């Protein structure tokens, strides 16, 4: 693809351009340098090496003897060994990795002795879980947001009052209050009511994640309605006339003629909306959903690695939003080629 230059850069000469590139790099170093200097000044202990465990970790497992007894037998089982301890109350068996203990058959044991000490299986860390929850919630909310937005957008441009006015009311009500307040209403008002009704009928409670997904989808959907409406209104009215005069119904015309063409204008603002959605999902920590931001906060309360974890948290959001915007750019290029 040909690179487009803005009018401003076209005016500048090559030397000025090079100076300005150098200036940019210098600026970046300056920013990073000052942050580093500031942390040195307040004597912050960077411990990045402790960070990987927030993604994957191997728990250390130590097994203790609880009652007097004797090692009855050691039975090798592939790369593990089954230790059988014969006590007064009967036999106890422990399956542990070979080499994680040093007992022989016949040794006697007493409470407090270590039977075996070894590393358990790899487990996802706090941030990995938070990242997964954020991705999952954002993905599901995006799907529902698109559905709501398309239905609402089509209703918004229709002439039927019930459809049009319902869409207008939806958009205005949702855009008119903070997302955080809406999340609270969904969880504490709607959620409490729903769960009570479900309980009265013997149905299990709905997971808070679903209230979060509802709030996010409905919030995003309202913005998508306006995006879809603008996309539809940008289509030349002659397109509708050509379709309708051939005998197509309103909905056939909408789904086969208008929306496919509107997609091109809709895509870029839609991407912006879903990038917002990913970031807005950080508010769901307020209703005890352990998404990335809440997971980070929890990590900090136990480890006190405030700087590393918040910076990492921001980088992870950046990675998600950047990937999404790359993906949408790819889609745009593909629809443009058609």
């Amino acid at each position, binding site marked *: 693809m040909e690179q487009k230059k803005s009018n401003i850069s076209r005016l500048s000469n090559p030397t000025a351009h090079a100076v300005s590139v150098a200036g940019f790099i210098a600026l970046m170093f300056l920013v990073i340098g000052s942050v580093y200097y500031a942390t040195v000044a307040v004597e912050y202990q960077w411990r990045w090496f402790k960070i990987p465990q927030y993604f994957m970790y191997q728990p250390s497992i130590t097994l203790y003897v609880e009652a007097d007894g004797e090692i009855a037998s050691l039975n090798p089982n592939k790369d593990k060994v089954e230790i059988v301890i014969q006590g007064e109350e009967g036999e106890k068996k422990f399956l542990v990795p070979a080499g994680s203990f040093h007992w022989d058959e016949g040794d006697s044991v007493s409470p407090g002795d270590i039977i075996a000490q070894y590393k358990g299986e790899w487990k996802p860390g706090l941030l990995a879980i938070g990242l997964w929850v954020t991705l999952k919630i954002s993905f599901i909310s995006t799907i529902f947001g698109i559905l709501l937005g398309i239905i609402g957008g089509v209703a918004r441009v229709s002439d039927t009052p019930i459809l049009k006015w319902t869409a207008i009311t939806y958009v205005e009500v949702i855009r008119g209050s903070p997302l955080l307040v809406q999340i609270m209403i969904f969880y504490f008002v709607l959620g409490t009511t729903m769960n009570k009704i479900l309980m009265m009928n013997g149905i299990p409670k709905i997971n808070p994640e679903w209230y979060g997904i509802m709030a996010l989808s409905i919030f995003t959907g309202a913005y998508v309605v306006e995006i879809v409406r603008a996309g539809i209104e940008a289509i030349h009215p002659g397109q509708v*006339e*050509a379709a309708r*005069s*051939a005998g*197509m119904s309103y909905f056939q015309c909408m789904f086969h003629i208008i929306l496919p*063409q509107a997609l091109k204008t809709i895509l870029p603002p839609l991407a912006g909306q879903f990038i917002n959605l990913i970031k807005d999902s950080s508010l769901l920590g307020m209703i005890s959903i352990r998404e990335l931001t809440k997971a980070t906060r929890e990590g900090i309360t136990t480890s006190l690695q405030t700087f590393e974890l918040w910076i990492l948290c921001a980088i992870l959001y950046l990675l998600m939003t950047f990937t999404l915007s790359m993906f949408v750019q790819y889609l745009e290029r593909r629809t443009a080629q058609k």
Partner: protein
Amino acid sequence: MIEINNIYKTYYVPHEVRALVDVSNSIKAGEVVVVIGPSGSGKSTFLRCLNRLETADHGQILVDGVDIFDPKTDINKVRAEMGMVFQSFNLFPHQTILGNVCLAQKLVRKRGKKEREEKAMMILEKVGIAEKALAHPSNLSGGQQQRVAIARALAMDPKIMLFDEPTSALDPEMIGEVLDVMKALAKEGMTMVCVTHEMGFAREVGDRVIFMDEGRIVEEGTPEHFFTAPTHARTKLFLKQIL
């Protein structure tokens, strides 16, 4: 085939315009009617009322005996029998030429893939554009696009064809190819209502010419009467201006 009884149409936005005033006419099967008149005289409004793209304020239009302004009428059924060709082509830019000609066949006529594609290729052949079947509209010249638009309408096997200044947006050298297609159609016996300034076309294949001015039908008659012995002063003036 089409009965038009005393229709009125007034636009109020942006300001009051009486686009049609007490217009009545009767179009017979197989007839080629040419509508002429100065800009803003209501020609397009008249044509667009015939398939209810515009709704008349008063009056009645019967297409094959069906009252098209009756709310109980399934207008999509009526429209399927009437092809329409616009000044600005209005091809679907997201579809290939073949897709353009097949879409309404599929959605409205419910034809199978094989049937509609055979039909499409046959008609594209007829309008001389079959080799472009897989191209997109933006890669075609204006004249080619308009011929595709005609093919798209014909693929529905309409009983009536409506043309709203089909050659006005074309470069002069492309007008001929579109008119040729229309003339061939007229000679096959298609019922046609054409708004056009192509007087040669009117003379050659028109059965009747309608002259409109300020929302009214001022004069009508055979092309011969029209171009040799117009009676109304407005008609004479108009003909003098454009011939």
